[in-house]
């Protein structure tokens, strides 16, 4: 069974000859349309999460549901298989249920809008957009309850549902949904914005088909898919070894309810022209909400988007190469949990997959290997009633250190996620009972290397009203690793300085924490790992970083650099050349070898030092019911 497509015009699409230049022109126009989708969304959305931070993802697919432009891959075929009903001109489908759309979205706060694009009675394409809503109901404000044990606790589940039927808004359904969330007006507006964005794409597709002809348009989309197929074929030959599989393991530090770390393991190899990614050996699913239900096609997309720039930076990236990649994820694991496992806290495993992927691809080619980076999007929630008795609910995404890379140092306090930006502090202070008393990078938090890892951020939130906070972060236990001799970056910490003079370290994942007026939370994110041998870094560059307050005088020792002069008088600082030479020689002598990956020790060693270094007890090794 599955969806039944209703087309009033039964004439089939004939493949036709399209010259290369017309393809290039349509390709260009479609990528403009995709950018316009973002622009429309940002201008009309209301919640800070979408409009300031850009937490949303657009797509245009061909009539078969293959993504032609976009970045998070197509899920339309999965949806079509799962949906029982007719699809007609004017329908707009809304869903947020990962289990009902083959994990097209991976947790409930992501609302996905899907629009079939019809022209003259025939389906010519699809547009889709999903965005992170401020709230989805459920146990906690922001709807990412750490301790949830099943998806029912995470708020309203919307199976694929027509929110517009033949062009008519299904108002009662909409009101039913909005009645279940804490921020109904934000969601209403954001949903409007998602729909406006998809409609824009629909309009552009219809215009293109009018300009060039429906047949040419349809054929061109196939050609664009083929271009990616050809490019990726070459890339796979280049990067994926046939004989010796690459294996990499990384971790998410804990599940927020006392167990961890959870292993993500992947083995990569090539059979003929096919690349295979096998996640056998990944830990079973967690009891709490840190599971990440991975759509295999989404992972293919990660792989492609990471590598395709190597051959044609201007190519409009799409999923034409999917048949070249085989992703195997065992059922019941952290990456493919069994229904109704909780999913809302999936961001850590999602981010970590990028580190895993980067490490796998870089093993055979250290020159293109990046260190471990800011592979997460940490969240802070702060909610309560302000002095006027009005409900407020803040959702903030954190930023941190981009890793050291072959092209150079990692930027400090930036985002790995496409399109994400921080929210201006003055904006936050104007609209929420908060004062930001520091917003600065943490010196030495970027791993030392020939190319330094970017620094993490220290954001000091002073709460001006009593309320509750929730924190979602990771890499507090395991390190953002360095590569090719580079050192790991500093890990994340969360410390709250109470107005009464006491202070405490908060776990990396917690919710329902009460805060009082005057309390200050230091939300410290982690730094990126270093790239290459720090002993080879130009001493003057290290000195400049010191003058720029990005590295400390003591921190310079990690590069084997000895500084003379007073730290209080930055211009007076000089590199002590003789002492530096001696120290570098000594360090080079004492180290055993240059590590491809420096993880800062084994899990056992890290756990043994845990309480002392992080002020938090180590998590227990996960135990899984067999």
């Amino acid at each position, binding site marked *: 069974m599955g969806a039944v497509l209703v087309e009033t015009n039964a004439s089939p699409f004939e493949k036709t000859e399209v010259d290369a*230049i017309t393809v290039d022109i349509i390709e260009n126009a479609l990528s403009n349309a995709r950018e316009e989708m973002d622009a429309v969304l940002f201008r009309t959305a209301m919640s800070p999460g979408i409009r300031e931070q850009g937490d949303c993802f657009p797509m245009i697919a061909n009539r078969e549901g293959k993504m032609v432009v976009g970045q998070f891959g197509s899920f339309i075929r999965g949806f079509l298989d799962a949906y029982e009903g007719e699809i007609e001109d004017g329908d707009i489908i809304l869903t947020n249920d990962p289990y009902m759309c083959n994990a097209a979205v991976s947790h409930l706060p992501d609302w996905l809008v899907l629009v079939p694009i019809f022209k003259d009675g025939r389906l010519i394409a699809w547009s889709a957009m999903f965005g992170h809503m401020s709230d989805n109901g459920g146990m906690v404000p922001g709807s990412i309850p750490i301790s949830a044990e099943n998806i029912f606790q995470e708020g309203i589940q919307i199976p694929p549902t027509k929110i517009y039927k033949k062009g008519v808004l299904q108002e009662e359904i909409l009101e039913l949904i909005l009645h279940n969330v804490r921020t109904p007006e934000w969601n209403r507006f954001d949903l409007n914005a998602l729909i406006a964005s998809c409609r824009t794409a629909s309009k552009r597709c219809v215009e293109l088909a009018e300009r060039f002809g429906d047949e040419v348009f349809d054929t061109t989309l196939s050609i664009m898919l083929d271009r990616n197929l*050809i490019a990726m074929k070459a890339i796979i030959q280049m990067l994926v070894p046939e004989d010796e599989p690459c294996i990499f393991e990384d971790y998410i530090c804990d599940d927020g309810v006392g167990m961890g770390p959870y292993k993500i393991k992947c083995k990569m190899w090539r059979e003929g022209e096919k690349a295979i990614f096998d996640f056998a050996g990944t830990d079973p699913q967690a009891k709490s909400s840190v599971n990440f239900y991975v759509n295999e096609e989404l992972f293919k997309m990660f792989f492609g988007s990471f590598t395709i720039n190597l051959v044609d930076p201007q190519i409009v990236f799409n999923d034409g190469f999917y048949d070249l990649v085989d992703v195997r994820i065992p059922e019941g694991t952290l990456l493919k949990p069994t229904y109704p496992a909780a999913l809302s806290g999936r961001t850590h495993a999602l981010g970590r997959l990028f580190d895993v992927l980067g490490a796998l691809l870089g093993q055979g080619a250290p020159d293109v290997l990046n260190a471990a980076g800011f592979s997460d999007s940490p969240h802070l929630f702060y909610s309560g009633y302000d002095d006027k008795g009005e409900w407020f609910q803040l959702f903030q995404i954190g930023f941190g250190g981009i890793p050291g890379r072959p092209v150079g140092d990692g930027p400090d306090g930036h985002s790995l996620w496409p399109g994400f930006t921080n929210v201006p502090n003055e904006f936050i202070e104007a609209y929420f009972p908060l004062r930001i008393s520091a917003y600065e990078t943490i010196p030495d938090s970027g791993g030392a290397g020939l190319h330094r890892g970017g620094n993490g951020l220290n954001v000091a939130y002073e709460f001006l009203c009593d309320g509750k906070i929730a924190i979602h972060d990771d890499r507090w236990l395991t390190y953002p690793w360095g590569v090719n001799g580079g050192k790991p970056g500093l890990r994340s910490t969360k410390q709250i300085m109470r107005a009464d003079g006491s202070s405490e370290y908060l776990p990396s994942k917690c919710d329902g924490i009460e805060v009082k007026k005057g309390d200050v939370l230091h939300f410290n994110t982690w730094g990126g790992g270093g790239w290459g041998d720090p002993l080879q870094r130009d001493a003057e560059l290290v000195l400049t970083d010191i003058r720029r307050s990005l590295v400390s005088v003591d921190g310079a020792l990690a590069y084997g650099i000895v500084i003379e002069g007073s730290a209080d008088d930055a211009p007076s600082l000089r590199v002590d050349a003789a002492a530096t030479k001696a120290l570098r020689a000594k360090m080079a002598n004492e180290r055993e070898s240059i590590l491809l990956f420096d993880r800062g020790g084994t899990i056992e060693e890290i756990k043994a030092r845990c309480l002392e270094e992080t002020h938090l007890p180590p998590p227990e090794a996960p135990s899984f019911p067999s």
Partner: protein
Amino acid sequence: MSYRLGVDVGGTFTDLLLINEETGETHSAKVPSTPADPSVGVLLGIERLVETASLDLSNIDRVMHGTTIATNAVLTGKGSKVGLITTKGFKHILQVARSFCPGGLGGWVSYVKKPLLAPLELTIEADERMGADGKVVAGLDEDALRRDLDALHKTGEVEALTICLVNSYLNGIHEQQVQKIAAEKFSGVPVSISSDVVPEMQEYERAETTVVNSYVRPEVEKYVTNLESALEKRMGADTQLSILRSDGGLASGRSAAERPVNLLLSGPAGGVSGAIYFCSRGGYDNVLTFDMGGTSTDVALIQNSTPRIRRETRVGDVTVRSPSVDVRTVGAGGGSIAFVPELTKALRVGPESAGAEPGPAAYMKGGKLPTVCDANVVLGYLPSDVQLGGAMQIDKEAAVTAVKTVADALGIGVMEAAEGIVKIANEAMFGALRVVSVEQGFDPREFALVGFGGAGPLHANALGTLTGAWPVIIPPGPGVLCAYGDATTRIQDEASRTYVKMMKNVSLPALKEELVALQERAESSLLADGIAREDLVVSYQMDMRYVGQAFQLTIDFDKAELDAKGTALFVESFDEEHTRLFTFALEDGHEVVMLRAIVYAKNAPLPELKVVDSAGSLNDAKIAETEIFYNGKTHKATIYARGALGSGHVVPGPAIVNEMDSTTVILPGHIASVDPVGNLLIKPEETH
């Protein structure tokens, strides 16, 4: 007899236009720019004009000037060393910026951040805090500041100083306090403070804008002073120098030098103003402008002969909060390089450009790679033979050889490849025109399209076909259009402040008080320049949004409208505009974000300008017969001399109209008529 002089200093040429303010008679000159000291080129041009117009220099009362000096300082990274003072805890404000890595998924892998315009080693913190309500949370620690200023001064590196403190957009008292203390140490160093330069919410954008102001300020100040004194020496002390700002208004030399951040798009604004001048006189008040140069193309939308103004200005990687004519730029120009990636066999054009050096292959300056310009040569749009009307020495064979590399990679003929390159470049420019029209809710078919700049007239006809914007207008002297713009605009200034309030809580009397205060601020610079109060005209703007939106819309209004309708005026206008842009409006939730007063000086009206008008026949204008390639076929075409065309002439396509610094292509199936103003109006044949 009094004259005004328009001067546009571009990267390569300095254009001058002299207007007799009584008769409307014009004279123009083009001389090479002198980058080391641009005033040298300006004076040289003036001498040239004086020779041809034989007039007394003291008759020139007003010099109106567009300049790229601030733009170039930013683009080449050759501005001043800027020291920055932030609030304690925010010293990394520029380092972190908005945390944004450009590019898609994985874009961070290759992202290289540009050096900060105020380096961190010259950044210090002030221990103070202003609240989000504009009230002081913690006073300034003056002793600590003096110590840190001392250390900063000792570096000996600071050439300009910027102060940007958190929440100063609500209350600038701490910034003023810091400025006073800094002046003790840094006498003679220009200081820019953010509450003065751009009192708007968002600390990073405000800091960056104020820093950019400092970054270009010493250079601009020096330039303006040099030019002013050179002009005075040559023309007398009563000569008034005005400089065109990014928003298309003129500012006095003095006020421009204090706020050079407002000059970043002075160049393109001049082009847009010049285009408006000729289009409106031809009866076209709604136009799309299309200014194609060597490396990039600027487009803008003009409604009712008024350009849309954007609240930010972008130059290269730098974005500042400063009003500018809403010009969108795409990296496609005559010098854009075409290539074919080996695997995908796609034809790509740009963003790499051959620039002026080594330039297109056809220009014989060492360039070998095929460019858009070469494709134009291959297709016959740019006649290669001077005898055929080509103004420059052009090597057609070199162009063919270059384009053949692309043709071979694609497995198609040279002509087809050349046409492909031109089509793809046109598509990129079409994309930019869509951004300013369709994406803003405007139908381009309701506009005319005006092409200018070195390559604009070559591509304008094709862009007319893509957009459906007819007629396509090629104004007289498309290469000196900026100077026309400079000479025909008004002196203006503005003042704005953040005013965040729900519309329902806005009190009309309080609002009016704010507007009066803003008006006083805005007119102060004009009054200081000696303009009489009765010659000033004021208008207002309010930026609004639905509460929670990041996007804001600007509503223009004047006092009479406000008196008549009260705050209902804003709600109505906003809903109308929002519906046009996004197809919907909400019933409530209207929020005010910013208020602004714009004050300009009434100009004495200019008589109609007289441009060259030939009395000869169309036949007299023919230079030669040639061939062009279009739509897969070779067509016979005629080359005409623009200077020999006059009002009423109708040029049938395919044709090429040639003049000193520009070439216009009229495609098969189109005709071009010359209107009384001197514009070439290109239209499809059947609509004639």
